[in-house]
């Protein structure tokens, strides 16, 4: 699990609706670009790479049910435009098959799409002075740092929204709570919110740092292998223009 998907119901509605709107703009722009030749020919590659991201989650590469997704590697292969569509398709399919997050597909698409696009940009920046394996590993690591930072930023935005806590701190089964402690809780919301954000960020960074290291090593091995066997796939001897 190197990608922290935001589950349903933890973020305020305005935030995930805004995320859906922003993602829709990116997806529409990417779809228009992908619809034109020669990019349309990349549709099977896009689909296969998106499927690869889903399937690789089920591989026992890391013991203990730790899922990897190789978003940066997929981004390096696809390029930014196709990556946005692939990120949307992956998140939608994962939500449909029980991974949760159907309301935050837009936000998760932005996070994953950014990570994939960052992987593509950073790999192209690093490959001029690093070996493909190192460039791939470093690009994957930094892309995941960017993706996780973006996720923490989005959650922070949701938690810090004035007057709108994402969750009621006191909920009684069958009716909303109306007792003095609720008022006290309201009065202390600001400090509680800051505490929650800090606690959440520390937790995510602890879990994330393990994932970044692991996935960047795996990405480096895979990129090195691809660079030897099919270098055009990672843009080292370009046959297909990046989208």
């Amino acid at each position, binding site marked *: 699990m190197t990608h922290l998907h935001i589950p349903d119901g933890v973020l305020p509605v305005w935030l995930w609706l805004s995320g859906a709107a922003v993602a829709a703009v990116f*997806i*529409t722009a990417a779809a228009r670009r992908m619809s034109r030749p020669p990019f349309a020919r990349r549709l099977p590659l896009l689909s296969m790479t998106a499927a690869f991201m889903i*399937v690789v989650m089920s591989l026992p590469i890391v013991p203990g049910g730790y899922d990897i997704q190789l978003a940066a590697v997929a981004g390096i292969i696809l390029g930014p435009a196709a990556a946005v569509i692939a990120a949307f398709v992956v998140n939608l399919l994962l939500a449909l098959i029980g991974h949760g997050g159907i309301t935050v597909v837009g936000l998760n698409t932005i996070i994953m799409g950014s990570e994939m696009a960052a992987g593509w940009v950073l790999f192209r920046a690093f490959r001029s002075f690093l070996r493909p394996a190192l460039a791939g590993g470093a690009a994957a690591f930094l892309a995941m740092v960017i993706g996780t930072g973006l996720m923490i930023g989005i959650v922070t935005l949701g938690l810090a929204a004035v007057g709108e806590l994402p969750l009621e701190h006191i909920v009684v089964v069958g009716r909303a709570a109306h007792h003095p402690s609720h008022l006290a809780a309201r009065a202390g919301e600001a400090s509680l919110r800051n505490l929650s954000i800090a606690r959440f960020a520390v937790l995510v960074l602890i879990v994330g740092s393990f994932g970044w290291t692991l996935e960047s090593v795996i990405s480096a091995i895979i990129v090195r292998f691809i660079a030897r066997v099919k270098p055009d796939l990672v843009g080292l001897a370009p046959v297909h223009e990046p989208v």
Partner: protein
Amino acid sequence: MSQFDVAIMDYWSTSGRSFLHRAGPAAKVLMAAGFVAAVVITRNVALLAAIYVTCVALLAVARVPPLKVMAIASYPAFFALLFVIGEWDGTWQTPALIFGRALAAATSLVTLLATTPYPRVFGLLSRFLPHIVGEALFLTYKSVFMLLDMAGNMVTATRVRSGLQLRHPLTNLRNLSLATGKLLIHAFDRSEREYDIMVVRGYRGQIAAPERIWQGWATDALPVALGAGALAVAIIIRWNA
């Protein structure tokens, strides 16, 4: 995610003959949308539990193994746990609300896909998506099965060659990463061939999708009523609070 989650859900959706399987995709999408909207609106744990139990009961009636579905739909619980730890205020209601929302929403979606073959769901969704995204959705889902098969063979082959050993986790990591790289190369080659086959078969940028999204009131009324009912209850509870 288990390697077989996608495959088994596809089997359930295509092999079932229950009233829920016979209902139109539009009715079931509306039901899932109603449940998810109720999950988002409500802060009532009892309603979340009711939605969850309704989905499980519907699946049991439709002869889809409810325990397996519950296991599949429990995946978001891990991510929810991070939010629970981050948000916990010492009460039981906060974790119940976070877990309840995550599980009820996921189970609603699994109920949809476990009783509706994917071309029918994606055919409906494609009406609201750019055509290339709709096609990517179809092709990706189809490719998942192909890759699952290849990945299963790949893991077996790595094991047979003693590439996976309990005492050597770093060697395992290297071997499986290399095997994953090979899988990616095979996937790339396969995608090229797939495209050529599609073109030969007349593909011109449009994949045909089933047109019929409603099946009639006899089968569609119940799913629509359940979704609308859950949403109405959520709105009433929220209004009264």
